[in-house]
């Protein structure tokens, strides 16, 4: 996969995750867009790779956040 499509894929995957964001999809989308636009001038391959890795890290963090939020809500509802 070319680096360009890797970036586009990352954006799409993050957008998909944003649908479940606690503060709403629009809140998430505008921030996501800003974050990508901030780095649009980056052309160094290594630097782009670093940013892609950071994006993957954010995906993992978001998944963990959702999991924890769900777990805590259910725990409060059914076990306390």
């Amino acid at each position, binding site marked *: 996969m070319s680096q360009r499509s890797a970036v586009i*894929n990352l954006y*799409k*995957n993050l957008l*998909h*995750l944003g649908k479940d964001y*606690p503060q709403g999809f629009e809140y998430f989308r505008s921030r996501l867009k800003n974050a990508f636009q901030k780095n649009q001038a980056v052309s160094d391959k290594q630097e782009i790779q670093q940013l892609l890795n950071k994006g993957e890290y954010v*995906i993992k963090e978001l*998944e963990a956040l*959702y*999991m924890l*939020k*769900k*777990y805590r*809500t*259910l*725990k409060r*509802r*059914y*076990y306390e």
Partner: protein
Amino acid sequence: MARVLVGVKRVIDYAVKIRVKPDKAGVITDGVKHSMNPFDEIAVEEAVRLKEKKIASEIIAVSCGPAQSQEIIRTALAMGVDRGIHVEVNNPEYENLQPLHISKIFAKLAQDEKIDIVIFGKQAIDDDCAQTAQMTAGLLNWPQAVFASKIEKTNDELTVTREIDGGLEIIKVKLPAILSADLRLNEPRYATLPNIMKAKKKPIKKITPKDLNVDTSPRIQILSVEEPPVRQAGAIVPDVNTLITKLKEKGHI
């Protein structure tokens, strides 16, 4: 290797504020975000882990409900389930579908598909019945290990740790068996976009309760659905003496 059946239910998303219909016949579902019942996610995750540990050979996800239930089966497929069965039940029939009917459908499917392990979520977060797993076990006359928080396979048996009041209970069940997943069984994986795309190629079979010879006529009538009582406003008292007098008045001290 075992063949596994998992039950998944489409419910109103856990984060949505539930509103009751003005005529008290039920809750408002139109235009409300729905997702997979969280306890069913745990059940699906456990099935997928059994497959990863080479204990399970094939996993089938089953959902009973209207056409939108297919989306929930898709989510299960994206998490790693092999194929889906959608038992189509439309409104108004679906509104009166009760755990007993679901159990009958699952009991039939478990026999037809030669299933060894059926895993359910311990309860759905909409009706909170927590009956389907138990009744399916009863109908099939299979052993049940419900509210499981740990599942291990030893030879032809499953060693299951169950969550009970104030502690844990460890039991052994022979296969075939019925399991239901408690909250602490595992941490379900997220259905990522690439996996959802790949899951579109996996097959979903569509059937009706009639195909399975299951009678879905209602056995219970819902009289009224009510909102929980609203918390009453508090009052601020000027000093300790008034507080004590007020508490005495109410008979708390």
